[in-house]
């Protein structure tokens, strides 16, 4: 285990950036509904493309949150064994979890990138606002790739579990 303080520092920094970004997105998500419903009643004009903006923002929230969760080892687990495990057993469990996460995230990043590139090639857009879909997916793919690198790093540095 090298330099646990550096890892704690990184966790805090990423947490702060994520908090700001995700915060803005959630406020925007709320505002869109309010503008859509309010506009419909007050001005007889719902927010054009409100549903599409909502869809993209939900995706943005999910993938912006991913690196922070990854740094915390924060994904949901069934976690039945850990209380029975010895410290060594727990370290092995954490290592296995991280390996599974790296494999899964690499697959996800690679395939989302390919999928996004395919849609970008077709010029696929959203229905009303004509937002290109492919590039949005490719950005999410990059975030997944970054998260895979983070887990790999945590595994190599044998960093302690983020929530313990």
């Amino acid at each position, binding site marked *: 285990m090298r330099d646990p303080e550096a890892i704690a520092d990184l966790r805090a920094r990423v947490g702060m950036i994520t908090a700001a970004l995700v915060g803005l997105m959630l406020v925007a998500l709320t505002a869109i509904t309010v503008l859509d419903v309010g506009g419909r009643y007050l001005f007889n004009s719902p927010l054009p493309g409100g549903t599409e903006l909502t869809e993209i923002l939900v995706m943005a929230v999910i993938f912006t949150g991913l690196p922070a969760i990854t740094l915390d080892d924060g994904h949901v687990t069934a976690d039945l*064994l850990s209380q029975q495990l010895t410290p060594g057993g727990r370290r092995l469990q954490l290592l296995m979890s991280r390996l599974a996460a790296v494999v899964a995230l690499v697959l996800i990043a690679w395939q989302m990138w390919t999928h996004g590139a395919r849609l970008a090639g077709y010029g696929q857009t959203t229905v009303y606002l004509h937002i290109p879909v492919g590039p949005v997916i490719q950005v999410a793919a990059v975030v997944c790739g970054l998260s895979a690198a983070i887990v790999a790093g945590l595994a190599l540095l044998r960093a302690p579990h983020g929530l313990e």
Partner: protein
Amino acid sequence: MDWPIGTAILFALLFAGIPIGYCLTLVGFAGVASIIGIDPALAMIGQVYSDAGRSYTLSVVPLFLLMGNMIVQSGIADEIYDAANAWLRHRKGGLAMATILACGGFGSVCGSSLATAATMGKIALPAMRRHGYSDALATGSIAAGGTLGIIIPPSVILVIYGILTQQDIGKLFLAGIVPGLLGIIGYMLAVRLSLFMRPEQIEALPRLSLARRLAATRGVAPALALFAFVLGGIYLGVFTATEAAGMGAAGAILLTAARGKLTLRGTLVTLFDTGKTTAIMFFVLFGALYFLNYVNLSGLSTDIRGWVLGLNMPPLGVILMIMLMLLVLGSLLESLSMVMLVTPILFPIVTTLGFDPIWFGVFLVVATELSYITPPMGMNVFVLRVVARDVPIGQIFRGVVPFVILDLVRLVLLILFPILALAIPRSM
């Protein structure tokens, strides 16, 4: 890879503590690849992770979470507990009963069971411990009370069921009200049952004057107003159930601001928590969706349907069997993934047999609530471990036994009297 092998591997990995979403994705991938080949199975990963997150209807997940978290930030969650306490504290097991009532109250402005258990755990656990409640009863009542968060509207699980089966989410919400109230009553009885089964030395608290009770209740008014705004808006058709989440979140933000609690720091923490929980839930959802494709391709659903219908049982027998199946599955699976997995399999069976789809949604959620508190996989129990680190998990599971009993009673009542769920939505 046949589905019995695939599911066995899945459970092995789940129990080993590998993140649920990644387990589902990786085992699903191996399974799908064995059936249709590696390239299509890979492409399916790209498709699931790219498409499932861009969902208008699923926007209720972050927004209902935000609404609940904002209520915590505003301090109203504490006042809900104080109010419940004022009315019940002098009774036998009063603090535990107050916890149940407060969970129900908080559940009416929060869409998730985990958030309800986590929030009330932080507030109610210290109080109960201070007054000599056993760890088993204290944590058991919080874990059980937390499940009320997903049957009392708004409810993220009911939204997912509605999406999977194309049912009116507004009606599903309304159908959850009476079973939710029954849950509150049942769990309060369970507290007494618990004390009857294992008497405890609990410090009795003096009764409060009516004036003081009313004063404490005043704090609940904003939460009640928000609940009425969200449910009334759906009921009267001012907005759709999907829009209700955004309106509710906005309402909660306004309430927080009005109480002077909308500080930059606090708000950032709330938003950050909401974002993280959203991402965590969706990564389970993505995995479940991918695994669902494996289930579909492997013929598991066809096998189960053929088996159930082949038994030629009367509809009531089938429902009882489904109930048993859900209880077994629920003891093994995390609830969100369970609803996602069983709904496509069971829905065609029960509708073929003539059961009401709205009723079945409520039935499924009540059965799923049980899975939150039953061993070995009780999500609410795991959440409590974060709040109450020193309580051994076995204690918590022991504490929930009386609550499980009352939950079973409620399930049977729902089967015998479907009108309990259907009366309100039918009046719409």
